[in-house]
């Protein structure tokens, strides 16, 4: 009997109790976002038709609302336990006595790095409603002692908006993962969490989820994700895509294409392009679905976004778009709405540092970038939103 646990921002203690029960009694379970798309619901139903593929696995994580291509990743209890043992050392978690759950537990980052770590090491897991009720969250953060947080970069603007210059000295570890590391926000993060050691974590759900980790001070480059953690090997494929082998990885996947076992000898694509630095650390150069050839030029959307961070202090996002010749490109979405001078700064930065092939087809704005319960950008909503305001477009 498989338990389905659907998490959102709400602090549902009965759900946490069921999760604890499933884990301690070796019952299989699936964690999923509360608001599932029809395709994901259908995928979950299909699990009954794929019992053989998933037998012997312990738990599964349902993704991905952001791309609209649902998939289940099956984990193994012993692998997950081994990973949190490794993370405990790498992330220097011994002094941490509790962890506040700001991300929903349907997100493998929160599930493993927080809930499972707390369960295995006898630390307190404190559920919160996240930024749904910021005042309550502020009180929880003020009252915490020796706490660890797991965040995604797109939550930093929320911290700024709701907490301003408040300080939370009880937080001693802050982990970022899931999006580009907010390197430029580190001075602010250091003010809000004055006693916190900050880490940049990199991984993917296939890795369940961790591959690399670094201290924030180890690099000034937001793309630098540090060294592989013990038990993980990285290499590049022929096309420059990052591949990994991990003793902690997912053991099977289930998608519309059916169930697939993942063997230990398999090099698994992480979904990113990367380069290895001279000190052995790795830098991510773009999502494999965000690097493309346009007019014969290799374009990395992430490289463009990283550069624009120098001239735009608001949020930056993008979605794929085809031009009139059906060649792939992208639209840049900024938030909040830029002033004419700010727009000129963005355009000037594009002109001065990139050839026309790298420029977005459109520059649009939204009052805020839509996010999923996990805090990650909601790509589907970003594409379909009718509230986007057009500021500039290429005429080809």
């Amino acid at each position, binding site marked *: 009997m498989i338990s389905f646990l659907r998490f959102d921002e709400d602090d549902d203690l009965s759900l946490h109790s069921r999760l604890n029960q499933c884990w301690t009694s070796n019952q299989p379970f699936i964690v999923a976002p509360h608001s599932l798309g029809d395709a994901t619901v259908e995928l979950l139903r299909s699990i009954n038709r794929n019992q053989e593929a998933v037998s012997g696995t312990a738990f599964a994580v349902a993704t991905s609302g952001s791309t609209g291509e649902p998939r289940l990743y099956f984990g193994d209890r012993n692998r997950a336990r081994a990973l949190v043992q490794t993370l405990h050392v790498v992330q220097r978690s011994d002094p941490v006595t509790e962890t506040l759950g700001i991300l929903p537990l349907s997100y493998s980052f929160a599930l493993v790095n927080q809930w499972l770590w707390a369960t295995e090491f006898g630390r307190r897991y404190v559920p919160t409603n996240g930024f749904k009720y910021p005042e309550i969250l502020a009180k929880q953060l003020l009252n915490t002692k020796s706490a660890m947080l797991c965040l995604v970069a797109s939550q930093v603007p929320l911290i700024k908006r709701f907490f301003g210059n408040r300080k939370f000295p009880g937080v001693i570890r802050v982990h970022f993962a899931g999006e580009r590391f907010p390197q430029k926000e580190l001075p602010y993060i250091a003010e809000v969490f004055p006693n916190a050691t900050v880490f940049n974590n990199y991984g993917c759900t296939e890795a369940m989820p961790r591959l690399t980790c670094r201290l924030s001070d180890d690099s000034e480059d937001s793309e630098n994700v540090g060294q592989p953690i013990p038990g993980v090997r990285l290499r590049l494929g022929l096309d420059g895509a990052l591949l990994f082998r991990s003793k902690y990885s997912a053991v099977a996947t289930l998608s519309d294409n059916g169930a697939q076992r993942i063997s230990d000898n398999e090099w698994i694509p992480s979904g990113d392009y990367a380069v290895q630095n001279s000190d052995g650390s790795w830098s991510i150069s773009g999502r494999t679905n965000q690097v493309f050839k346009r*007019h014969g030029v290799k374009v990395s959307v992430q490289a463009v976004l990283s550069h624009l961070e120098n001239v735009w202090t608001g949020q930056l996002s993008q979605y794929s778009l085809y031009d009139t010749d059906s060649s792939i490109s992208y639209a840049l979405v900024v938030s909040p709405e830029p002033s004419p001078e700010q727009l*000129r700064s963005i355009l000037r930065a594009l*002109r001065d540092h990139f050839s*026309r092939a790298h420029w977005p087809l459109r520059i649009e704005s939204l009052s805020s970038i839509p996010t999923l319960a996990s805090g990650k950008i909601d790509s589907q909503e970003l594409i379909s939103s009718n509230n986007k305001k057009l500021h500039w477009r290429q*005429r080809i």
Partner: protein
Amino acid sequence: MTNREKLQDLLQDILLLDPSEFRFDLMRDDVQMWDSLAVVAIAVGVDETFGYHFTPEEAMTIKGVPDIMALLETKSISFAE
């Protein structure tokens, strides 16, 4: 908005020029971003803004802003100040 202002806006937009960088005597060689793709974009933009689509031969002869204005003047689109 006059036709001069419309053309200025269009070219600033396509070539990503600041208003202070634009001149009506700008030549293609003066602007690094005036590449072959920009030529196509200018043709599309002129069609959208002034309702005239350059023939490929006309587009090839354009060496600067004065050429665009001169070509459009022959189509009764005036750029008189």
